[in-house]
């Protein structure tokens, strides 16, 4: 009778501990911190803790089961939400520049290479070059001054210039 009572108490303690842990995790489940919740392992780790313990264990507070569990089974993924764009790489700059150039109606996409000169290879004139640099300004969101804009004559030079301005190193 006594042992039955104890076993019943033990399972009740286990359930209670699991519930408390789940509640703690839910209260900590803030938008900025994500726990990789493994509920089964929580109950599994809770089981040996509560098996055969007395009520004094629970009176110690909620910290100890949670501390034990967070060290073993939870993975804390810190995810900070700042308002900024993804970082630029030479690869992405190159792809974006070529994409903008392909959208331009005076350039045929087949002839376009990274080293094709706007005036010599693609047959554009200086007004078109101004338009292209304007499109690049729109794409990357920063202004290119006149003196430097008129020197950019190939896609490769544009990529290099943007990488210099945006401090992108590889």
């Amino acid at each position, binding site marked *: 009778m006594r042992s039955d009572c104890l076993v019943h108490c033990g399972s009740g303690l286990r359930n209670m501990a699991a519930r408390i842990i789940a509640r703690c995790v839910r209260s900590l489940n803030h938008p900025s911190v994500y726990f990789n919740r493994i509920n089964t392992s929580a109950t599994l780790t809770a089981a040996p803790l509560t098996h055969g313990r007395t009520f004094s264990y629970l009176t110690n507070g909620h910290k100890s089961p949670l501390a034990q569990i967070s060290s073993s089974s939870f993975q804390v993924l810190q995810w900070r939400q700042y308002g900024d764009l993804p970082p630029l790489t030479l690869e992405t700059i190159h792809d974006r520049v070529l994409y903008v150039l392909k959208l331009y109606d005076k350039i045929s996409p087949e002839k376009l290479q990274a080293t094709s000169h706007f005036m010599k290879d693609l047959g554009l004139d*200086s*007004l078109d070059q*101004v*338009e292209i640099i*304007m499109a690049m300004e*729109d794409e990357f969101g920063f202004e290119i001054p*006149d003196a430097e*804009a*008129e020197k950019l004559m190939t896609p490769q030079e544009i990529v290099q210039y943007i990488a210099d301005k945006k401090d992108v190193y590889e």
Partner: protein
Amino acid sequence: MAVSRLPPAALSLKQFLQRQKVLGVYRDLLRSIRKIPIESDRRYLRDWAREEFKRNKSETDQDVIRMMITQAHNHLEDLRRSLALARC
């Protein structure tokens, strides 16, 4: 005796400066057009600016070019003033 080392198609200094002015006013015009809030108006004006500049691209008379640059500046000022008024 002075053999010019420049290729025959090179511009003189005055022509070069004028070319820079034309490109400068074209760029300023495009930048102001960018600020127009309505998309269809923006597209229309961009096409209009393109057409105007392309049409007169082959002009070689310096005085005519100077006159056209002045006209472009006037258009640019009108556009800027309209934008400033429209914003408030």
